[in-house]
């Protein structure tokens, strides 16, 4: 029959027929000629409100100085997930993530920026800091005052999973650091070879403390916002371990619930870091804009906005007095003091088979 065409040619025809469909799909993406210049900031969850306002301020500032409209695009998600997206090809001009470790990953896994990225901006590239506080229910019924109250029988603690959430890693290390300090008196002892035995004992105590703490965790959400929802909306748990700025936001968003913030005597100095992604800005020709964007974080206006959104700005001189007054005095220790930096902390605590995997055994 003449209608019978040879199948080899048919196969080819078929392949050709499908190609335009794919081509049509991919052609759609390249349409930005008429739009203003853009900058993509890939950030983590709790900065949504801050960057929404900051981006407007920066765009106005840039327009004043250069007469050019810029549009800041914004992406939020879990810190590790965001870093992974950038490594896989999300074209972030700047990243503003929860921990330096995730930005390090951009260097180690994708060579997107140099190893010394942290030295390129003041304060080790952390324009604002934060810390970990407790949020309790109205009237603090369980009488939570400090870290040691969290391991009491019958106290339910809500924290996200340190394996998936940047914020949870700060929670975990804050608890670990508290226990070490309690045992050793000061974290400086970690570096004193003469006290190696003490340090070993203290680490055992810290392990026991964190184990007991996680025994009290009834729900381990994947991200910080999930935990907050579990605590606030679902009414589960007595204490929420939370970023300081999230704690204030929670009080505002759920004003009628009467949540109270408990400030422990000591906590960890959380340093969310920022960096421009060299590979991307060089390809897109947006280096100057990206640099200006990050510098603006350190400018008086940027610092004031950070304080407004309850991040501990490095320079509180320009912050509204009411904003600055919110930050309770608290003794803060750093990741370096607790664990010798993020890389070491990750390997010891959070990598597969690390401390967290060992100490986290449910079956209560």
């Amino acid at each position: 029959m003449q209608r019978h065409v040879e199948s080899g040619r048919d196969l080819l025809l078929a392949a050709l027929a499908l190609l335009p469909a794919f081509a049509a799909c991919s052609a759609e993406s390249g349409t930005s000629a008429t739009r203003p210049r853009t900058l993509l900031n890939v950030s983590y969850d709790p900065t949504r409100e801050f960057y929404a306002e900051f981006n407007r301020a920066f765009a106005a500032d840039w327009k004043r100085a250069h007469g050019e409209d810029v549009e800041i695009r914004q992406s939020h998600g879990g810190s590790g997930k965001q870093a992974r997206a950038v490594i896989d090809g999300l074209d972030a001009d700047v990243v503003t993530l929860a921990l330096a470790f995730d930005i390090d990953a951009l260097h180690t896994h994708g060579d997107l920026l140099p190893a010394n990225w942290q030295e390129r901006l003041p304060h080790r590239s952390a324009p604002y800091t934060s810390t970990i506080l407790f949020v309790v229910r109205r009237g603090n019924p369980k009488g939570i005052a400090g870290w040691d109250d969290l391991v009491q029988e019958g106290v339910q603690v809500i924290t996200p999973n340190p394996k998936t959430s940047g914020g949870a890693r700060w929670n975990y290390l804050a608890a670990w650091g508290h226990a070490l300090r309690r045992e050793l008196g000061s974290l400086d002892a970690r570096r004193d070879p003469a006290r190696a035995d003490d340090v070993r004992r203290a680490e055992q105590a810290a392990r026991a403390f964190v184990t007991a703490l996680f025994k009290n965790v009834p729900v381990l959400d994947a991200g910080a916002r999930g935990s907050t929802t579990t605590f606030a909306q679902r009414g589960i748990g007595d204490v929420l371990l939370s970023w300081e700025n999230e704690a204030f936001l929670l009080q505002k968003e759920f004003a009628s619930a009467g949540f109270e913030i408990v400030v422990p005597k000591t906590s960890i100095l959380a340093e969310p870091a920022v960096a421009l992604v060299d590979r991307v800005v060089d390809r897109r020709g947006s280096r100057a804009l990206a640099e200006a964007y990050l510098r603006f974080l350190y400018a008086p206006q940027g610092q004031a906005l950070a304080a407004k959104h309850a991040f501990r700005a490095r320079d509180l001189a320009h912050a509204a007095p009411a904003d600055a007054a919110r930050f309770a005095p608290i003794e803060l220790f750093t990741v370096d003091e607790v664990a010798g930096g993020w890389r070491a902390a990750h390997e010891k605590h959070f990598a597969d088979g690390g401390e967290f995997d060992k100490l986290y055994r449910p079956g209560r």
Partner: protein
Amino acid sequence: MLPGFGLTLGCTVTYLSLILLLPLAALCAQAASLTWAQFVETLAEPRVLAALRLSLGASALAAAIDCVFGSIVAWTLVRYDFPGRRLADALVDLPFALPTAVSGIALTAVYAPNGWIGSLLAPLGWQVAFRPAGIVLALAFIGLPFVVRTLQPAIADLERGLEEAAASLGASRTRTLVAVVAPGLLPALLTGFALAFARAVGEYGSVVFISGNMPLETEIAALLVVTKLEQYDYAGASAIAVAMLVLSFAALILVHAAQRLASRRAGSAVR
């Protein structure tokens, strides 16, 4: 002989290769970057084992629940007339049409200890959300249409003559149901089970909200894939993904075989 076989088969194979086989090849290649020992080690981790066991167990349980209630639902929808039948019939498809993320937050909102139904169960000491029960609930929710929709045509196609013959020969209704109706429906039921099960093993969106995500307890395999990815462990994520694929595919083949057996039995019983 109809024309167009070569052309359409060529298109089909090409499309399947581009959209399905090529991506899966990439997945297997990624998993193959592990040595066999590493692959086994990844899967033998207690968390991974627990997650796989939970995913498979909860999916099987959910599919079984769907089979029990799905049979009742399908039977009543086909055989009985009652007020609201059309509405009920339409509702069956909702879990399929509703985006999984919406199902997730809706089920969590309803079954959380302070939700509409959760607050009624809480005084009884029953907690659904953030427990394995919540996972089973979510999976049963998404699997329901697959069971009901597979059973409905089968029930409708049952030859009533056979039932009538059995009844006229003096068989009780129960006996007719067991000896005539059940074997006739078994193949469809198994298909429904397989579809619901396969869908449930990989489910993510509707489960993460309600599961509580406690490692070793309520952490599902799909979440572990995401967790591994977030630690830049692509090979580990791919290893778990491949294991999930193999397991759910094996389950499908198993059920398929059982289904063949059942339809042959049913066929011979009819004859």
